[in-house]
């Protein structure tokens, strides 16, 4: 029973990693850049949701709001967070990354780091250093086996959201016109232009999707572990990047699998081996997997044609 | 005549050779026996047998996707063969890496040019001289006298090699900034710098106009004559192939469909059907 609860902890944590990793993988796969500011967009999303909920709580809802009312507030807060992050993502892309289209990938990486610093410090000035306690968008839990096993609704929601997003993205990139345009851009921007694809618009679109996902991830992350501060996004961001690579960067199912496994390994390592060395174990597993499968679990290894 | 090259049949050396008369007194430089590789379900190369004499210029032709480049990749161990053996100068090459194969004596160029684009032309050649002008990393860091003498030797040798194609004046240019034709020539020079006994050229004339091709032909023969090495080339320019190749091997769907001299090949109906088409010229 304990094992099950650790497993569920791992899966719900992993689902959050997976959602973030999906955003990473999208942006990486298409814009070919490591967007280290992705984690900070998560943080912004969470703050937006936090303030919307606070505002609604103090101005719109009464002392004892109905489930429906608070549900609507939660939904609105998520949607607003997505909207803000989408705009933020597109603006960042347009101002900081687009001018670097011709530059090397490392130049973009460093700019992304600059953006990350910027977002964190701007958040501290705007929202203060004092951590906020985030109110989960859904509360309560499912109790099984006579109370021996509890699964919070947040965990269930996270897992469900993660699966839906993964399936949605897979279909989108595989089937839709825009999705194919994205894949074309990811391979050869010049050739994509010759096909009539608006490369800038496509990359903006990618950032829009990635950032909207980041907003969702931010809300879920803070619903799961309720402390929100300007640095909230950075570690999950790195973990998610790891997850994306673990699963095979650029691969959507890979990001999903990688995130999930990472969460599970982390939880089980903490529970059964050592809380002290859980990161070490996690990263060691990662290294071993990459050595056996150098392109990640589901990364497709396209050999170079010689 | 044709019977001699029947596929799948083990015959003693040098009868696999396209032109057995050449270098008849010496053992062949290269022997492929029943070579083959699969990509997934695709038999890209199957039962490929070939022998090349010490100073032969051999041609490998065939329709697109026939497996010609793949054979080069097998010879240089870019791909590990699924079946068969490759003997270089009588030595089995199985289990060797690409780098070791080069040190054993095979150098090549690539169908899609692969230069060290950010290095200068001279440095590209010097990289080719890597195993010729040897000194240790420590010698290099400490700049011991040996470093200076080896570097000078490398420089002189690089210039000498570049002069084959009259490219000395380009020595300081970044390789990636050269015109296409010059890049192809530089690749050949770099391959020569490794002091090979067998030079593999993958479509050396691609992207060159006929006059440039004519010049290239002369140079290939010149290289063979000066360095006394074997050259094997893949080319779709029939003028080049028919004029300088002493033996030609035709591949289709990974299988050898014909071997022989230019005349034999040109009149072979199977080759005409699969590859040459109704030739007007050459």
């Amino acid at each position, binding site marked *: 029973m304990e094992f099950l609860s650790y497993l569920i902890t791992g899966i719900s944590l992993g689902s959050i990693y997976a959602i973030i990793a999906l955003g990473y993988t999208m942006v*990486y796969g298409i814009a070919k850049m490591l967007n*280290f500011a992705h984690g900070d967009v998560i943080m912004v999303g969470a703050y937006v949701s936090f303030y919307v909920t606070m505002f609604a709580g103090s101005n719109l809802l009464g002392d004892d709001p109905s489930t429906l009312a608070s549900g609507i507030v939660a939904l609105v807060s998520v949607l607003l967070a997505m909207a803000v992050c989408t705009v933020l993502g597109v603006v960042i892309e347009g101002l900081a990354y687009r*001018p670097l289209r011709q530059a*090397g990938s*490392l*130049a973009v*990486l*460093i*700019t992304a780091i600059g*953006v*990350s*610093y*910027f977002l964190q*410090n701007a958040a501290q*000035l705007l929202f203060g250093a004092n951590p906020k306690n985030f109110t989960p968008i859904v509360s309560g839990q499912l109790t099984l086996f006579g109370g021996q096993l509890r699964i919070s609704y947040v965990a269930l929601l996270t897992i469900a959201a993660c699966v839906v997003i993964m399936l949605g993205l897979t279909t989108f990139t595989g089937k839709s016109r825009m999705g194919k345009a994205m894949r074309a851009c990811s391979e050869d921007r010049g050739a994509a232009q010759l096909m009539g694809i608006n490369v800038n618009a496509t990359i903006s679109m990618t950032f829009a999707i990635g950032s909207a996902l980041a907003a969702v991830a931010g809300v879920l992350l803070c619903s799961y572990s309720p402390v929100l501060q300007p640095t909230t996004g950075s570690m999950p961001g*790195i973990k998610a990047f*790891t997850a994306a*690579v673990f699963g095979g960067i650029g691969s959507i199912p890979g990001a999903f699998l990688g995130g999930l496994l990472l969460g599970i390994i982390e939880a089980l390592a903490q529970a059964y081996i*050592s809380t*002290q*060395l859980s990161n*070490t174990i996690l*990263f*060691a597993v*990662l*290294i071993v997997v*990459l050595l056996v499968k*150098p392109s*990640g679990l589901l990364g497709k290894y396209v050999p170079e044609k010689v | 005549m044709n019977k001699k090259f029947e596929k799948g049949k083990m015959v003693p050396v040098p009868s696999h050779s396209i032109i057995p008369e050449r270098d008849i007194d010496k053992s062949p430089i290269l022997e492929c026996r029943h070579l083959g590789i699969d990509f997934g379900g695709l038999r890209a190369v199957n039962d490929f047998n070939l022998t090349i004499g010490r100073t032969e210029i051999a041609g490998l032709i065939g329709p697109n996707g026939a497996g010609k480049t793949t054979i080069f990749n097998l010879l240089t161990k870019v791909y590990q063969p699924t079946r068969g053996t490759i003997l270089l100068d009588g030595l089995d090459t199985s289990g060797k890496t*690409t*780098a070791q194969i*080069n*040190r054993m004596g095979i150098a090549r160029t*690539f169908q899609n040019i692969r*230069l*060290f684009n*950010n*290095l200068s032309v001279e*440095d590209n050649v*010097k*990289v080719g001289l*890597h195993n010729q002008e*040897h*000194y240790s*990393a420590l*010698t*290099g*860091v*400490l*700049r011991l006298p040996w*470093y*200076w003498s080896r*570097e*000078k030797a490398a*420089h002189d040798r690089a210039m000498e090699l570049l002069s084959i194609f009259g490219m000395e004046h380009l020595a*300081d240019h*970044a*390789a990636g*900034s050269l015109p296409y034709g010059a890049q192809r020539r530089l690749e050949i020079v770099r391959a020569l*710098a490794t002091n090979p006994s067998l030079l593999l050229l993958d479509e050396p004339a691609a992207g060159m106009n006929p006059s440039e091709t004519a010049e290239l032909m002369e140079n290939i023969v010149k290289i063979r004559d000066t360095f006394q090495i074997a050259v094997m080339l893949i080319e779709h320019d029939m003028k080049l192939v028919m004029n300088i190749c002493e033996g030609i091997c035709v591949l289709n769907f990974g299988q050898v469909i014909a071997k022989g001299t230019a005349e034999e090949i040109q009149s072979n109906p199977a080759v005409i059907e699969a590859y040459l088409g109704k030739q007007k010229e050459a």
Partner: protein
Amino acid sequence: MKSYFKNMKTITKADYATYLGVILAFIVVSICQSQGLVSRSLGGMLVPICCYVCMSVSLNLTVGVLGELSLGHAGFMSVGAFSGIITAMSLQSAVPNDLVRMVIALVAGAFFAAIVGFIVGIPVLRLRGDYLAIVTLAFGEIIKDLINCLLVGWDENGLHIALNVDGTKSMSSLGLSENGIEIIKGAQGATGNARIATFTMGFVLIMITLVVVLNLVRSRTGRAVMAIRDNRIAAESVGINVTKYKLIAFVTSASLAGAAGALFGLNYSNVTAAQFDFNTSILVLVYVVLGGLGSIWGSIIATVVLYVLPEALRQFSDYRMLVYAIVLILVMLATNNPQVRALISRIIPRRKGAAIDE
């Protein structure tokens, strides 16, 4: 010989200019310091600046010359720092001379970082691109975690080392004798270190780093490494043992970072593993990229400027890191702007076959 020099002219000129610049800077700063013209603030930054210069120059070897993205360079600095501190502290009575002890510690730092670099390098270098990045990142975190559990003490019986994985061990479980010294106390790091690092030593280390990196790059080995960077398959096809040369570059880079780390460790009375985390690796990477991949003098200048910048921005108080971020982004945008680049290349004419001075 003569014509050879003629050919090497442009490259060696740039190299000698780099050496000369560093030497001049050292002389000027030393003179100013002896005249009391250097503020404490700047004076205190001299040694760490030297360390970071070595860090960025050595990382440039991996990222710029070898062309592999490493996000764990601070891990090697960490190994160097702690092995350097252990060495220096253990030798405190045996080698009373600070200078000698410092040199031994630096060598030890470089040595252990090289060993770790070798161990990490073997598996890591089979991977490419971003996979390498993530594994180096992972390695950096692992090193940090392990050192966080590390307990080291020294007494006349020699070194006492324990790994406190489950929290059950403490310094007392090392069983140090009466006059033993506690060197590393887990997450608290090394405390009470003797601060023996000097600016002069930092300068010497920079010079050594420069000589090693520049001479390596201008040698047969360096050409092989750059060839691998530009086209691995072609490099193999001309007989270069890719793994060997990748390892040479990687291990050299690691050991130079280790030496820098040792110097760094000897400059502070307290050093913790957490200081050498992912963010530090990123910081050094920023120096390298901003200075220009493969450009050694660029790395040096970028390091000095970017290290001093947050300090210079102290007057902005709360806004200082925000301003830093904005400056970073703007500089990246400006240096990669085609117009600005064209302008720069007009001012500083470059060799046509730009290999490393790009």
